[in-house]
């Protein structure tokens, strides 16, 4: 229960926030349903789903699957790698571990355009110029940050629960699997979703890595709306971006219940 439940100020603030986020999207909505869309903000001149049928035609089915593949692989790899390493980092007192992690996170700053040359050559020499390579590359770039993130979440799992499991005979693996991970569901979900979206949105790496047209993800397909001489097919762009974004939003809603487990502080007194 909260004392904000019926607060009108809060309701008003939330309404404003919602308005701030929703109203700009009218551009997308209007252009998407307007077969005559010209990229300006105007009431649709005509209504029709032509843009959508274009957006889901042709390669986009396969591109969708490719996007799903990269995103799932990336998020899974990132979560597993980060999860494995975050536990020791959270529990073993390594001198300067925070500073080290921070320094590593800074590497994320190296801009894609700069880092792409070395990454490309590395992928080429290991035969990873493929979607799998893309997933690995994104995993690599994101790892320090996700590691730090997960460590923070692991830090909040009460040691006493691990002690209880340990004294009940649980191996390290079971302590992790049955206590630490379930208790960090919120953190894991965030890390997972973060990497998922990162991969879902990544454009440059797949463009450069993928050898076969059939392997392109949706983020590349989006740019088919851009023609020569900076001409843009706005109707297609708007419709495609919705078709592109909505599955990822749906993933969030599937994941969302993990963000509020209400476990914190329940099992232990103090």
């Amino acid at each position: 229960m909260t004392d904000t439940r019926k607060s009108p100020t809060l309701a008003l603030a939330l309404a404003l926030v919602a308005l701030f986020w929703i109203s700009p999207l009218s551009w997308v909505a209007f252009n998407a349903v307007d077969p005559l869309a010209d990229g300006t903000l105007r009431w649709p001149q005509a209504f029709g789903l032509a843009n959508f049928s274009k957006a889901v035609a042709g390669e986009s089915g396969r591109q969708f699957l490719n996007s799903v593949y990269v995103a799932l692989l990336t998020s899974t790899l990132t979560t597993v790698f980060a999860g494995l390493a975050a536990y020791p980092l959270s529990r073993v007192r390594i001198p300067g571990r925070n500073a080290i992690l921070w320094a590593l996170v800074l590497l994320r700053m190296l801009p894609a355009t700069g880092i792409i040359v070395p990454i490309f050559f590395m992928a080429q020499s290991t035969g990873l110029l493929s979607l799998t390579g893309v997933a690995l590359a994104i995993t690599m770039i994101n790892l320090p940050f996700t590691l730090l993130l997960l460590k923070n979440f692991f830090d909040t799992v009460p040691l006493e629960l691990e002690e209880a499991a340990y004294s009940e005979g649980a191996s390290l693996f079971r302590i992790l699997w049955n206590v630490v991970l379930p208790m960090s569901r919120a953190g894991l979900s965030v890390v997972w979703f973060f990497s998922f979206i990162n991969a879902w949105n990544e454009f440059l790496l797949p463009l450069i890595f993928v050898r076969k047209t059939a392997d392109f993800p949706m983020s590349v397909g989006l740019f088919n709306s851009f023609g020569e001489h900076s001409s843009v097919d706005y109707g297609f762009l708007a419709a495609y971006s919705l078709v592109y974004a909505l599955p990822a939003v749906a993933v969030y809603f599937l994941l969302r219940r993990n963000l509020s487990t209400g476990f914190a502080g329940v099992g232990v007194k103090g």
Partner: protein
Amino acid sequence: MFDDAKPWIQRDWKLVAAMLIPAIAVIALLLYMAGWILVMSFTDLALFGRKATEWSFVGFDNYERLFKRRGFLNSLWVTTVFTVFSAIIGQNILGFAMAAALRNTGRFTKSFVEGAVILGWILPDVVAAYVWSATFTENGLVDLAILQPFGIETRNFINDHPLFVVIVANVWKGAAWSYILYSAALDTVPSEVVEAARVDGATPLQRAWHITLPILRPHIATNCLFITISSFVYFPLIYALTGGGPGRKTQVLSIFVYQESFAVGKLGYGSAISVAMVLIVAFLSIFYVRLLKDPR
């Protein structure tokens, strides 16, 4: 190192060490590449042309240029303003406030706001740029929906207040991340502790300030670091929206780098800028590190 670790870690220290392996391997790769960039920053390597193959070391030339060339310091300033207002203040605070406010609101409101916020995050940058261009351009959404009804003269905000527009756009685009992270982080705050503060008479703001925020300190520090980094290197939306202009008014460092290295293909110089940016952010983030450290 494992000496004062918990017994179950000591017992399985080999497994614990093994758990670190994938991360260490990946990070080693990353470091290797960072090293490559560092080395590149001392060369005149280019993406195209003769300098792509016949490059040579040029010492600190690239770094010197950075300060001599017009634009770097300006970009640094613009980036700092952009980061502080759009990320640290905008995304961070708004994201937190929403996470806190929506934690206990009804399902429908929550889903509605969340859906919009997350859609903004996932929407491709170029599309977001059109969205915001349509919002702030002459006769755009703001003009039509706010200014005209009140009889205020319409205007082109993008031309008049470009930095403001990109800041707003970036808040819109990026707050979802802070929102999601803080939603999860808030889940780790024991609800009874917050209840105790309520009983102690703390208002919602006081609870946030004295209880929730201190408990979330590591998460906040991490997030600040991350969004600072992201904003420092954030490129596509600003580029698509204003191209760094008018003039250099929104020429953030990432656009500066793009123009100096990518459009021009000068990898050496571009790397130097990147390295300099890393150093700058490293310097700025000393502040966050203090936030991360336990005060006691």
